[in-house]
């Protein structure tokens, strides 16, 4: 798992590359939380175009970040998920609380 990110004013852009499962869930969670803790966010964009695999562990990571960011009024956008990841996201109902974006 490789993660890239950049900040643009009040937007945080994160790109997840590789496979997200139990093995790297702590790394992803910690990486995101450290950036979130810096504050000043209004939108979090998670680029999933290079995420080739994700199981329900990833859903747990996303919901955990949602619970942290919702009280701060930060919106989360899931960008360009691959077909396999999109199927897991759709089944979980996560698109009810996060926006699927191109």
């Amino acid at each position, binding site marked *: 798992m490789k993660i890239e990110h950049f900040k643009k004013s009040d937007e945080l852009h994160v790109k997840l590359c590789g496979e997200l499962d*139990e093995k790297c869930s702590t790394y992803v969670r910690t990486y995101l939380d450290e950036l979130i803790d810096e504050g000043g966010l209004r939108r979090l964009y998670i680029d999933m175009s290079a995420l080739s*695999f994700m199981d*329900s562990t990833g*859903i*747990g*990571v996303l919901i955990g970040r949602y619970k942290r960011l919702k009280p701060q009024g930060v919106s989360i956008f899931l960008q360009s998920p691959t*077909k396999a990841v999109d*199927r897991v996201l759709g*089944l*979980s109902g996560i698109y009810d609380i996060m926006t699927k974006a191109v």
Partner: protein
Amino acid sequence: MKNKMTLTFSAISENESFARNAVAAFCAELDPTVDEINDIKTAVSEAVTNCVVHAYPKDGNEHTVTVITEIDDDTVHIVVSDNGVGIDDIAHAMQPFYTSKPEQERSGMGFTIMESFTDELEVTRNEPQGTVVSMFKTIKGGAVWNRKKR
């Protein structure tokens, strides 16, 4: 045609990727679609993750997970088993969003995904202890090309 593969490995998260990719590779002879392979990989990953996260206490001892994959014509039968603590109420544990570890940000979607991504899912107690997850999936494969002789 019948074929069978048995894998036994340590119940650690490093082996989740190995397990799902090994089962996917074993099924490749059935010429599955990309979607079918992804479904199998995801279902196997969920079952193995349950063993790694829930089956065994973190006591420093080595625990194992066994994955048996059988191919019978166009059907794949995958059995993931452990000898861990078992599940007290299996029907309750299979409810969507149920998790015994909410403090760990678990989604509780594991069994729901296994059920959705395979044709048949059965969860039973292992003897003398532990859990057995049995999944069937029929591989329909890709498009059939029609040929016409001149």
